[in-house]
């Protein structure tokens, strides 16, 4: 999906470097809208407090999801705009791009939402998000000390995520 | 024909004893089993130089009486299996085979989570399996 015109007009961020960080921010929500995980690698702009920021992001996804489903020309069976959909049901968007960033999104049928904001020129990240989801399963969901539905505080997850995100180009 | 089998714990506590005779001679058989424990201890504590290897579980013929032959088997957890038979010409291989199957049945019985180690084996399945094995013993030696 391309928003606000197709070409990369200025201001555009510096081109990604081969080894550098292309990822800016990552969010992870559960299906109740609780922000399980938030991490920023590169986010100079900070105008909102974290709670508002998370709420805004969740709201954006929610609206966008129902909007994209509503616009789906291939399926006749649609809910009304604003009526919640079951995760994984119907059509779902996986990314959008602006001139300054790209937002990639995935949702597991269990309602775990992973959002990765990267440089606009990064490629298809669907596999990468699946991989991050598998990291979450390995290091968080399977950790007996982790209480489902609470913010993730797990060093192994952090290190592995950092390492992996660094490799995304 | 096998007249009695027994399982004895490592402190010589009886875990399972079952006789397979019509006559009411359970007491006599228990006595024979009891006596055999001393022989087992002796075998274990004074291994013959040419005797079985250390990890050999089959102890062979423990002692013959006028009517019975008593065989022993010692697991690595020091649980003893005793077999009392009336057959006179018993093939060693048959007895070994019997004990091997008996051991397998025993392992499955103690794997029951509701079995308390060191307590008597009350499992009905175990009793059934043992009697099948005992019956099979008679058949294989006859053939």
């Amino acid at each position, binding site marked *: 999906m391309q928003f606000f015109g197709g070409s990369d007009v200025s201001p555009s961020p510096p081109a990604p470097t081969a080894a550098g960080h292309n990822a800016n921010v990552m969010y992870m929500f559960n*299906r*109740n*809208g609780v922000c399980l995980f938030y991490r920023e690698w590169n986010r100079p702009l900070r105008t909102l407090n974290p709670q508002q920021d998370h*709420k805004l992001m*969740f*709201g954006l996804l*929610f609206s966008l999801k129902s909007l994209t489903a509503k616009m789906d020309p291939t399926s006749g069976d649609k809910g009304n705009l604003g009526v*919640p*959909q*079951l*995760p*994984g*049901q119907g059509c779902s968007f996986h990314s959008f791009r602006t001139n300054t960033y790209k937002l990639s999104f995935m949702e*597991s*049928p*269990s*309602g*775990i939402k992973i959002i990765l904001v990267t440089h606009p020129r990064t*490629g*298809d*990240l669907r*596999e*990468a998000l*699946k*991989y991050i*989801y*598998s*990291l*979450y*399963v*390995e290091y968080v*969901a*399977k950790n007996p000390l982790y209480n*489902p539905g609470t913010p993730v505080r797990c060093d192994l997850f952090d290190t592995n995520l950092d390492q*992996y995100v660094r*490799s*995304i*180009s | 024909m096998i007249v009695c089998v027994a399982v004895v714990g490592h402190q010589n506590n009886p875990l399972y004893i079952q006789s397979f005779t019509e006559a009411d001679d359970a007491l006599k058989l228990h006595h024979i089993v009891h006596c055999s424990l001393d022989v087992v201890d002796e075998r274990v504590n004074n291994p013959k130089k040419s005797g079985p290897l250390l990890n050999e579980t089959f102890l062979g013929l423990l002692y013959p009486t006028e009517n019975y032959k008593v065989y022993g088997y010692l697991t690595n957890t020091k649980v003893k299996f005793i077999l009392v038979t009336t057959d006179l010409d018993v093939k060693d291989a048959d007895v070994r085979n019997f004990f091997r199957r008996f051991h397998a049945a025993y392992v*499955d*019985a103690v*794997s*029951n*989570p*509701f079995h308390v180690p060191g307590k008597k084996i*009350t*499992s*009905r*399945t175990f009793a059934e399996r043992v009697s099948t094995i005992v019956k099979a013993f008679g058949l294989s030696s006859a053939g």
Partner: protein
Amino acid sequence: MVKSETFPASRNRVEKVNAELVTLTYGTIVAQLCQDYENNYAQVNQQLDKMGYNIGVRLIEDYLAKTATARCNNFRETADMISKIGFKIFLNTTPTATNWSADGKSFSLILDENPLADFVELPDDGRAQDELWFSNILCGVLRGALEMVQMSIEAHFVSDTLRGNDSTEMRVTLLKYIDDELPPDDD
């Protein structure tokens, strides 16, 4: 673009664990529960269900990550997935989903083999045979896992070979689909 060969090792291979270890571990847990609750089997069943629930809510993530399956279109498909994929990858057995109710909302899972119950003989105290559902943890697992994918279900055993029944049968009933929550209001 994405280094797919760097997936965690356990993603690509099927993990193997000695079946007897699982059986003995589970058996010990049940036996210990019976001891702790002084053979109050109703409570043991309940506790097993609760433990299963806690496993289920996590296990579903593993299932989804491993299988990458999409949402099921109906409950029948869900039943198929449970028996042919879920049980297959976690217990390596394939129970049969059958005995559908007319409204398609409940079915029976017949477990031809139950790896949890090998070696097991229920205590011979006259009550366990009637009151204890040895494998009750499975009900909890299903309840927890399906709840995470927006299905509220009820599951219970109706027969168990350990009790001398001919088969081991679990009844699963769909109560309702849980709606996704709306984002919190801005205020």
